[in-house]
Structure formats: C-alpha cells, structure tokens
C-alpha cells in the first residue's frame, strides 16, 4: 500500500499545538508512506488537482493530519474517487481532538498520525493491554449521592465500601422537609434507600469513619480508613433510648441544625442507618474525664452494648475505583452581620427552617417564633423554639445570602431560589394569614417544572420582591427588614417576625485534604474539578476517581441522583471487566506505534 500524508490545519496558531515539521519528519519514516505534504492553514483544495496528484503518486490511502482535519475530508474523498481509488481510504489524524496540546503535544501528534497511517483507530491503539482493576469501590460520603451510587453498584453485584463521617448516612437530604418542585416528603424518598444500603449484602457501611490516606494506582487503590470509636455495639443496639434518657449532657443537635438539643450518647434521628446510638466523645463526660466521672449510660444499657473505653480502628481497603460524594456545607450566616443572624433570635438559616417546619423537628412542624425561656442549669435566659409558641405574622426570605457576591461566594449556589420558593409555600400552607416576602436578585427557576412552581408560589400570594435586602434590625422589639424594591425604585422597610436566610453552599470541610490525597484538583471555589466540563462531568483528571453530587459543584437532588447513577456505571465498568482504561496521556508513543502495528489487519 502506498500512503500520502497531507498536513492541513483550520487554525493558524493553536496554543500549545504540536510541532508539525517534526511530525512530518516522523511520518515520512513510517513504512509505506510515499508522500508527505504540508498544505498550511485552510488551504484551497481543488479535488481535480488533488486527484491528479493522487493518481501520479499512485496512492492507495490518504491521511489528513492536523487540528480538526475533518474539515478537509470532503475534498480528499472526492479526489480519491476522481482518481479511481477507494474513497474510504481517506483517514484522519485529528491532533487536537485526541488531546495533542500542551506538554508532549508533538509526541502525541506523532502517535495519532501513526495510528491513522496504519489505519487503526487511535483510541483502540492507545488502550493499554490489561490493567487489573479491583472489583470493589470506595464511596466517600453517605448523602443522597453516595447512597445512590453505592446502591447502584451493589445492585450490579459488586462490593462497595461506603464511608460516612457522621454516625448515620442520609446527609443533608435527611434534614429536609420537602423536595422542590414536587413537594414530595424528602424522608419518604430517602429512608427506603438508606435502609436498603444498611441491609445490602454487597455494601459495607462504615459510618463515623474518615478516609485518612489513599495510595496506589487507578484500578488498585489502597485506602486507609479511620473508624472512630462509636462506643456502642452497632449489631447489638436496639435503639431503646434508655442510654440517652439517662445521659446528663445536652449539646446542640447537628441533625436539627442546632435548633434543638441532643445528648452526648445519641442517635442522630430515629430513622438513622445504622439504627444504633453513638457516643460523641467531644461532649461525653466519661470520655473527657478519662473514666473518672459519669458512665451512667453503660450501667443502664439493658443490652450491655455500650463500651465507653472502646478505641477507634484503622482499616485498609483495596479498591479499584473511588467515588467522591462529600457534598457541601452551608455558608456561615453570621459572616453577613447586616442580616443579624446570631443577634436577632428569629433570623434563621435555611437548614434551621427545614428542621423547624419538619414534622420530625422540635416543634412537630409548627412554624413558630422563638420564645424567651430561663435556663436553670446555665442560669441565663435563652431564645428557644417552643411548640406552643406564637406564629409569625410576617416572614421574609432573603435570597443569595453570601452567593453571587464577590465578598463571599462569587458563584450561584443554584438551589437557593427553589428552596426559598418552597419555604414560601410551606409558610403559606401552614400560616395562610401570614405575609410572606421573597427578596431575590434574579429568579433562577431553570429546571423541569421549576417555572411552574414559581408561578404557583406567586399565585399563593407570596410577595415577590426584586432586590436583595440590605439589613435586618430591631426597632422597639419589631424586626425591620430594609431593602430596595428595584421594580418600584423605592427603598422599603418591612416589619417582619421571622427572616429566613437562603445561605449558599460551600465545599464540605476537609475537601482540600481529600483532594490532595486523591490527586484530584479543585477549582477556585473549592469544588472538585471534573475531567471535562461537557464530555466527562463525572470523571476526574485522576483515572479511577469519580465525583458525584454537590462536591463537584452546587446542584439539586435530581441532578445529584442522576450524576450518582452515572458514576456508578463508570465504577461498574472497571469492576465488571476487571480492566479499565488507563489515562491515555500516560501511554508512550512507542507503545502506541507498536500496538497500532499489531492491530493492522492482515491483508
């Protein structure tokens, strides 16, 4: 076979592009290459003249090489048929499309050109022969993303280690009252999945545990996981609550976003998975005094499953893939002093309101303002939620708290508009006579059914005010919210009894450490960077490590679940076949060339 290589390009100066002269010399030395011609940038191609050339050189195959060479294919295909050759023998060596850029762009371009000359697809030749791929997957984070990914992989028949930092899986979604825009009960969707995780034979659930280090290569990672001492035997505990009843220590409950209290030995919430209590060592008197005081829970436990002297353990896991699903935290609202969070008792963050309005929350779902109560133990007056407290007559919801703001988070947190509208609905549903205001900058109702939901909230009588409010102050015992109503050009003051702050999302604590351990970059805002924004939104630069959910960027529940299912497929690919693609960039030119040669069909 006689082969001609034509080098043409669409763009003049591709930054970091290959040295085409060097590629030309290399290609000229490949077997059967008779003609190498550089036609420059956007050459004017005359099929008739080309056909004469092809016929004169007696070429059987034409390779067009360069960035986006497909642009020139029609002219060469026509020329080949005019010359009486096989039109299918026009092959493309697409440099840019196969990742020839930056360091090693020239070497890569050579490999791409070689594959085209041999008539072997580049992706096929560049695939390494066999990499042993571990069958197990490590999922970091037990929120809805981690739960969904773990379930799908486990249902596919492969082993999953699900590592969760807190005492239960469920994450933020477990705290929510309703989902938007369907207003489904969040727990009704989540808890069956949680139970499935807890019972699945292929899922090893490691709660109250953290990934300490990761070594190895894609397909064969070794992860060290530190399992904190739960001090309660998960298998034996029947969640009878006696230990918690006798425990004398009260601290703010994380699950209730701090608006209610829990004991030092506790279960985060009744539907927790695993359904077992745990001891919070930071607040437990026994642990803090090295066993000198208290210990009453261990004595009272009817199942004798509390071991207050238990120590944490370190586990070594061998896994093929790692899925990062560490989620998010909410911005600390106290940073925006002007909204009075932490000063005005009835300024709440979104998560606090989720718990307040949740039927499993401290008020049984009644929306009430805080009441002043005397705390005898601490001898101070405290603002607390009393289920019998007064209902607010007017509620304001402030959007974009710390979001789209160069002083805090420059990005849009994407979920706040919709959850704020959901709050308005919940307020109007439970307190039809209360006035409800939404202060927004831009209403981002982008998802399926979201615009209709927005319309519904407007119909329900919520005042939708365009303008981010500026301050919440107290005037003679009445909270006053001040803001500009952009659409009427007026600065307005509104008396309100409750203010809900739609705080933005920030990456979870310790994301930076995890990113370093895994060798996965994060963007300027701290979210994990995907391999390719459009083409590979679940992969990362590190082979075998995938991202799902908010840790990759703010997103709502449907998108999170979709992405979690997608990463499950990615992890299963390696786990099922036992081999996976190594990162193509790490494969040497000589290997690709040798493999391309070996793949040439015998004629």
């Amino acid at each position, binding site marked *: 076979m006689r082969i001609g290589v034509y080098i043409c390009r669409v763009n003049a100066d591709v930054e970091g592009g290959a040295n085409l002269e060097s590629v030309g010399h290399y290609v000229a030395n490949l077997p059967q290459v008779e003609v190498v011609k550089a036609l420059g940038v956007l050459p004017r191609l005359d099929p008739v003249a080309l056909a004469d050339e092809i016929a004169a050189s007696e070429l059987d195959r034409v390779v067009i090489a360069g960035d986006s060479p497909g642009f020139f294919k029609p002219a060469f295909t026509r020329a080949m048929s005019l010359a009486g050759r096989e039109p299918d023998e026009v092959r493309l060596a697409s440099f840019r499309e196969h990742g020839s850029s930056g360091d090693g762009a020239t070497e890569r371009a050579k490999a791409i050109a070689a594959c085209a000359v041999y008539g072997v697809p580049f992706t096929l030749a560049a695939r390494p022969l066999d990499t042993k791929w571990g069958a197990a997957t490590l999922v970091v984070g037990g929120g809805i993303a981690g739960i969904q990914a773990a379930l799908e992989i486990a249902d596919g028949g492969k082993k999953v280690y699900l590592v969760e930092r807190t005492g239960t899986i469920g994450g933020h979604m477990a705290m929510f009252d309703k989902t938007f825009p369907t207003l489904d009960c969040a727990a009704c969707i989540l808890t069956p999945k949680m139970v499935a995780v807890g019972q699945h034979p292929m899922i090893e659930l490691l709660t109250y545990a953290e990934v300490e280090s990761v070594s190895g290569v894609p397909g064969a990672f070794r992860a060290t996981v530190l399992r904190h001492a739960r001090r309660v035997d998960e298998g034996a505990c029947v969640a009878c609550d006696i230990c918690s009843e006798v425990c004398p220590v009260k601290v703010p409950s994380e699950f209730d976003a701090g608006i209610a209290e829990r004991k030092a030995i506790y279960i985060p919430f009744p539907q927790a998975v695993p359904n077992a209590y745990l001891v919070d060592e930071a607040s437990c008197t026994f642990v803090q005094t090295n066993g000198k005081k208290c210990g009453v829970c261990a004595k009272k436990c009817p199942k004798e499953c509390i071991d207050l002297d238990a120590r944490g353990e370190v586990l070594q896991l061998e896994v093929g893939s790692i899925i990062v699903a560490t989620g998010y935290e909410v911005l600390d609202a106290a940073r925006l002093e002007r909204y009075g969070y932490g000063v005005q008792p009835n300024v709440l963050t979104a998560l606090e309101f989720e718990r307040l309005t949740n039927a499993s929350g401290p008020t049984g779902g009644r929306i009430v303002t805080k009441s002043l109560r005397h705390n005898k133990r601490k001898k101070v007056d405290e603002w607390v939620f009393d289920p019998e407290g007064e209902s607010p007559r007017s509620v304001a919801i402030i959007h974009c708290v710390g979001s*789209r703001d160069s*002083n*805090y988070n420059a990005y849009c947190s994407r979920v706040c508009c919709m959850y704020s509208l959901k709050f308005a609905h919940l307020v109007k549903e439970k307190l039809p006579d209360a006035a409800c205001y939404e202060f927004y900058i831009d209403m981002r109702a982008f998802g399926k059914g979201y615009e209709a939901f927005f319309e519904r909230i407007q119909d329900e009588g919520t005042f939708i*005010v365009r303008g981010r409010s500026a*301050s919440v102050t107290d005037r003679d015992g009445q909270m006053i919210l001040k803001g*500009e109503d*952009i659409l009427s050009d*007026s*600065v307005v003051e509104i008396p309100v009894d409750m203010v809900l702050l739609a705080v933005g999302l920030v990456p979870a604590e310790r994301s930076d450490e995890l990113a370093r351990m895994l060798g996965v970059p994060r963007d300027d805002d701290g979210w994990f960077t995907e391999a390719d924004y459009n083409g590979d939104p679940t992969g990362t630069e590190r082979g075998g490590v995938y991202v799902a959910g908010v840790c990759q960027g703010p997103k709502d529940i449907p998108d999170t679940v979709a992405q979690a299912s997608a990463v499950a497929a990615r992890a299963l690919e390696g786990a099922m076949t036992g081999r996976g693609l190594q990162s193509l960039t790490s494969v040497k030119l000589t290997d690709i060339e040798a493999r391309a040669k070996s793949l040439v069909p015998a004629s």
Partner: protein
Amino acid sequence: MAIRANPKLIEELEPYGAEDVMKCYHCGNCSAVCPFSEDPYVFPRKPMRHLQMGLTAKLEGQLDPWLCYYCGECSDQCPRDAEPGETMMSLRRWLTARYDWTGISRLFYRSWRWEFGAIVLVAIITAIAFTLFGMSQGSLADYDGPNAFLPSSAIHIFDWALALVLLAFLVSNAARMWWFTMGRDKTLRMSAGSYLRSLWLLPAHFFSQARYGQCDRKGPWVTHLALMLSYVVMLVLIMFFLAEMASGPEIDWRVHVLGYLATAGLVVSTILFLRNRVKQSAPQYRHSHESDWIFLVLILLVALTGILQHILHRSGLDVAANVTYIVHLSLVVPMLVLEVPFSKWSHLAYRPLAIYLARVRVTALARSRQSAEPARGAEPSTPLRAA
C-alpha cells in the same frame, strides 16, 4: 415619549472615573444601605441603571449625585465590586462639566494635563503681572508701609474684582444646574413660595454640612467640615480684613487668632485627606481622580506659602516675604480661577444648592400628589406597606 439611549455614555464617563458600572446586576443593596437614599431620591442603584442604559437626559436632570456624600458603605457591600460610590463621584464630576457652559471644566476633568497646564500658565501670568506691578510702584525691600511692594489696598481691589468674576461664572453654572434639574421639568410646578420657604437650607447646609454627618463614619465629615470652615474663615479674613492682616506689626489679636486657626485647619485637613488617599484607607479614598490630587495639593501649597510669608514678614525679612507673597499669589489665583467655577471646588456651591432644590422638588411632588387624589385624601398604601 421614549427616551433616546446613548450607548456611548459609559465611555464618556470613563475619564471622569466611572469604571465598573457595567458589573452592576441591580440587587439594590447599595440603595438600601445608603443613609441618604430616600424617596424620591433613591440611589446609587438607579443612577447606575441610567448610566448603563445611557439615559443622558435623565442623569443630567438628577440631583441625586449631589445628595450622596460617599460614605463608601455601598461600595463596601457591593457584591459585584461595581463601585457604586465611585460611580456617584464620577457623576458629580461629569455633572460639574455639564453645568459649566464654558467647556473648561470638561477639558480639565478629561485631561489632567490640561488642568495642570492651565494652572501653571495662570501661575506664571500671575507671578509676572504682580512682579511688574510691584516694581512699577514700590520697592521689593518693603513689605508694608507707603513704599510697599504689594500694598494691601491694591491687592484688596484685585481680590474683589476676581471674586466678582468667579462668582459670575459660578452663579451662571449654578443657574444651569437649576435649569437642568428643575427649570426645564414641565411635569412639576414649583411655586415661588416653596423656593422662598426652603431658602434657609442653603446657608444652613453650606456651613454645617449636616448631611455629611449622617454617614456612619464621622471622621471624613469632621475633616471635611474643618477644611471648609477654615477655608471660609480665611476667605472672610482676606476679603474684609486684608489690610489688618498684612499691615504693620500690630495685627489685631482676633484676626491673628482666626488666621492661625484657619491656617492650621487647612494644613491639617488637607494633609489628612492626602494621607487617606495615599493609604486608600476607606472606600471613598480608594479611587483618586487627578483632579482630587490637584485640588488638595494646591490648597496645601497655598496654606504653606501663606504661613511662610507670614513668618518671613514677622521676622523682618521683607524681601523674602515679598518673593514668597508672589509665589503665594501665583498659587492662590489659579486655585481660585480654575478650581472654583470649573473643578472640584464648585461642589461647595452645588451640594447645598442640590439639597435646597431637592426640598423644593419634594414639596412640589407632595402637592401634586395631593391634588391628583383629592377624593382619597390619605397617602395610598402600597402592598409592601400594607403588611
């Protein structure tokens, strides 16, 4: 009628210091935190919008920029770094140029080289003129007495002549300001009575700058008030007591005390302002237009040469005192001639005028609202207020 939008307006404002207007996404935070923003003068967001849209006619007719004192709260809290405070500042510069019918102000604000060149030119002319005048009728060796190089009587006449010319410029520009903001507005009828009844606002705000004191940070207001009062005291002394100040060793103690106070006030406040601008200590000092520097440096130099001239005169060094006097005059004259009607000084007139006109306008608005709804009587309640 629809308003013609001018897409080039932002470009036009750039030389005046408006840089980040396009970043604004209209969250309204600035207007709501502004201690001055109140119906119907809601800013800075609204003027920013007018600027983004290029609504020249609307901006030209606005008093809002003069009602802003640049506390910097808006820029501090702006989520987009759109610098609303600086935008208002640049609008004041632009309005000063619009009010000025000679076009000189526009030239100065758009090019500091022109402003600086004009100052140098006027300074040189002043120096030559006064030197020639002094040599023609007196002796360089005498500061006062019958043979004085620059006798206070002659300077006095010059001062008054200059003052009248400058006043004419300033008043004509102020009249244009009135025409743009009030006179040509056919939608509202401003009664002569309301003009008269609110007239007290002019001197009240000129001397107290009480509005500036509404900013949370009081420092800038105090410094600004000190600078302005020192300036006015010095002006009064020079316009009415020049003979007492300059002549003989027995200066009246009252003139003496006031003179020292005013000089100290000028020096200290200009140095404070310059330091703030160098250190960029607060939002309102982060952006300095060339005209801001020129103004402050000129005042400081005028004050310093004044002090030096006084010391030399008191020490009996008449020749040196006369030379310093010439230098002093060649700084004073450009400062007055160029800064009063055409540059930063003019805000001393426009600000109280704007407060005054704003009050008249509000009165007229209230009356037209009343007459429009005679049946209802009471103020209509908006849905926002109702709750």
